[in-house]
C-alpha cells in the first residue's frame, strides 16, 4: 500500500514538473499544427478481429488550422494492413485499409504547456481484401469523434496522447461490414 502511495505521489510530482516547463508564460498562439502519430486500431466487427487480429498498427498524419479563436478544422489520413489465415481452406488472406478524415476541432488550454483538443468529422474508409481466390475493394463514409491531450515541451513542439472512435460501413458479399473502430495512440506534433 505504501509503495502504491509513493508511486502515485512520484507520478503527481513528475506530471506537475512537466506542466511547469514554461512557468508564467502563455503558450504562443499557433494557428497551424502538423502531427504524426502511432496508433493501435481495433475494428468494431468481431469477425474482422478474429480473422485479422484484435488490433493493428495504424500510422496517422494530421494537419489542423485554427481559423477562429479555439475553433479550427482538421484533416488527416492513416492506414493499416493485416494478414489472416482461414484454416477451413488452409489459406492466407490479406487486407489493406486507408482512412481519410476531416472535420471541426476545438482546443481548450489546460495550463501553460497542456491543451486538450476535441475533434468531430467525417471519415472515408476504403479497403482492398485479397482472399478466397478473389480481390474485393470497397469503401464507406462515416463519422469520427476523438480527443487529444497535447503537451508542449518547447514553444513549437509537443507530444500528444489521442483516442478516437469512428463508424463507417459497406455492403459486401458477407453482408454489412463495419469499417470503423476504436483507435488510441501517441505522437509528435509541430505548431507554427
Amino acid at each position, binding site marked *: 500500500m505504501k509503495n502504491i502511495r509513493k508511486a502515485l505521489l512520484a507520478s503527481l510530482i513528475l506530471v506537475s514538473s512537466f506542466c511547469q516547463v514554461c512557468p508564467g508564460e502563455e503558450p504562443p498562439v499557433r494557428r497551424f499544427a502538423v502531427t504524426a502519430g502511432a496508433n493501435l486500431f481495433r475494428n468494431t466487427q468481431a469477425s474482422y478481429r478474429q480473422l485479422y487480429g484484435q488490433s493493428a498498427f495504424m500510422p496517422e498524419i494530421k494537419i489542423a488550422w485554427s481559423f477562429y479563436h479555439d475553433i479550427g478544422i482538421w484533416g488527416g489520413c492513416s492506414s493499416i494492413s493485416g494478414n489472416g489465415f*482461414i484454416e477451413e481452406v488452409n489459406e492466407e488472406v490479406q487486407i489493406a485499409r486507408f482512412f481519410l478524415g476531416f472535420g471541426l476541432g476545438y482546443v481548450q488550454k489546460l495550463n501553460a504547456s497542456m491543451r486538450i483538443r476535441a475533434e468531430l468529422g467525417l471519415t472515408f474508409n476504403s479497403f482492398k481484401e485479397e*482472399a*478466397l*481466390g478473389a480481390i474485393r475493394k470497397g469503401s464507406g463514409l462515416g463519422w469520427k469523434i476523438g480527443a487529444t491531450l497535447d503537451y508542449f515541451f518547447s514553444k513549437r513542439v509537443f507530444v500528444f496522447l489521442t483516442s478516437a472512435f469512428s463508424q463507417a460501413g459497406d455492403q459486401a*458479399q*458477407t453482408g454489412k461490414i463495419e469499417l470503423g473502430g476504436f483507435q488510441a495512440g501517441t505522437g509528435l506534433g509541430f505548431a507554427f
Partner: protein
Amino acid sequence: MKKIKSAALIGFLLLVWPLRAEIRFFYEFTGSANDGAEPNSLILSGTTLYGMTHGISNTGSENGTIFKIETDGTGFTLLHTFGGGADDGQWPAGALILSGTTLYGMTMYGGDGNKGTIFKINTDGTRFTLLHEFTGGAADGQWPAGNVILSGSTLFGMTMRGGHGGDMDCGTIFRIEADGSGFSLLHKFYYEDGAYPRGSLIISAGTLYGMTEGIAMKGNDSNCGTIFRIQANGDGFTLLHKFTGGASGGKGPFGDLLLFDSTLYGMTRYGGDHDLGTIFKMQINGSGFALLHEFAGGPADGETPYGSLVMSGSTLYGMTSRGGGNGLGTIFEMQNTGTNFAPMYGFGGYDGASSPQGTPLLHNSTLYGTVGFGGSWGNGVIFSLPLSNCILDLQAERREVRAFSILGQYAHLHFQVEYAAVPVAKYWIMRREGNGGFFLRKTILPRELQEEQFQLQDKYLDRDTTYTYRVEAYDTSGALLGISMEKTI
C-alpha cells in the same frame, strides 16, 4: 480327342463361371427365432438393408420376421416377429417399402380372416400396426403376394385372390391411405382381363402398370398371363398384352415390371424357345412387345426367373431360380437391347445357397440380394455382388467460407474405395460445369489415401453454376476400373 474336348470344356467353364464377380455372403440365417428363415427381397436406406423372412425353421413356424442389417454385415436386428392369427400378419409377401422412418409391407396370411394383411412399422421396430386385414369375397382382396407401392400418401397393391368369391376369385387391385383409411378396390380381375397377380404394381404419371400370372378362362386355365395398366383412380383398365407362351411368347410372370424411358421390361417364368422363361420389353402403350432373351438353362444361362429386373445405365440385372453352373440359380446381366447376356454368378457353390426367387437391389455399383435356401444353416443368406472392379463412393457438398468482405464457395469432396479387385494406380477427380463436359480436376495417387478414403477441397466455385463430380479409378495400364456415381452440387 476326348481329352482335348474335356480341357476345352473346363477352360470354357473357368472363363465363364464365375466370370469376374466376387460375391460376398455376409449374413447366414440360422432359422431360429433370432433371425428367421427364407429371406425375400431387400430395400436399402443409407447403409441399412431392410427385409423379411418367410418363417422360422427351428420352430416350424411360417409366421416370418422383419429385420435390418448394415451393408457391411454388421448390426443384424430383428424388428418384428410375426405372430399370425387375428392380430398379426403371417408369411410376409414381396418386399418392404420405406417412407421416412416407416416401413410398409404385406403378409399373405394372418389377420381376422387369415387372408392377409397390410402393415406398417417404424424402422426401429416400434409401432407395428395392421393397416388392413383382407377378408376376401366380393368386397375385398385376399392373399397378397407382392408388395405395396406408395404414391403421395396412398398405397397401391394387388392380391392374388378376392374380388368375386368362389371360383371366379381372380385377384384385385386396391388402394389404401398410408394411415389405413380409405381402402377401396380399383379393379377386380375376372376371366379374360387377367388373373392371379403375383407381383407388384409400378406407377408413372398417375398410371399403374402390372402383370398377372394367368388368364382365368372358364374351364380352361390357359395361364399365360397379362400386362395391364389402370389409372390410379381405378379408371381406364386396359390390357396391354396377353402372353401367349410357346417359343415366341412368355408365360407366367411372377415379378414386377421395370419402366425406363417409356419402355417396360419384365420376365416370365416360362415361355420362350426352351420354355424356361424369358426377358421381354414393351412400350407403355402396349406396342412393340419383343423377347430380349429366352432362357436356355445350362451352365452358361439361367432358367425360371421369379423376381424382377433392375437397371443401371443400359444394363439389366436379374436372378433366375435355376440354371447356371450348379443348376441352382444365377445372377445375370444383359444390355436392354437384348445383347451381351452373361451370367455373373452361379449359385450353389457356397454351402448350397440356391434358388433365388427375389429381386436384386442395386446400389452404388453393388447388387444386394437374398437367397432363400442354403448357407451354413440351410435357411438362406444375404449377399452382395460388386458390379465393377473398383467401387467408389463419392460424397460432394458445396460449402461456404467467409473472409471479411468475400464469401467463397468450394466443393468438399470425400470418396471412399469400397472395393477394388485389382490394384489401383490412380484416381481422377473429374468435374463438369453446368452442362459441359467432364474434365480432369485432380489426380490422386493411392498412397495419398488414408484407410481407403480421401478428402479434398475444390476451390472456388461460382455460386450460380452447378458442378458435377465423379471419381474414376485406373490401373497401371490405364484401363478404367470403376467410376463413382456422379454428384451434382
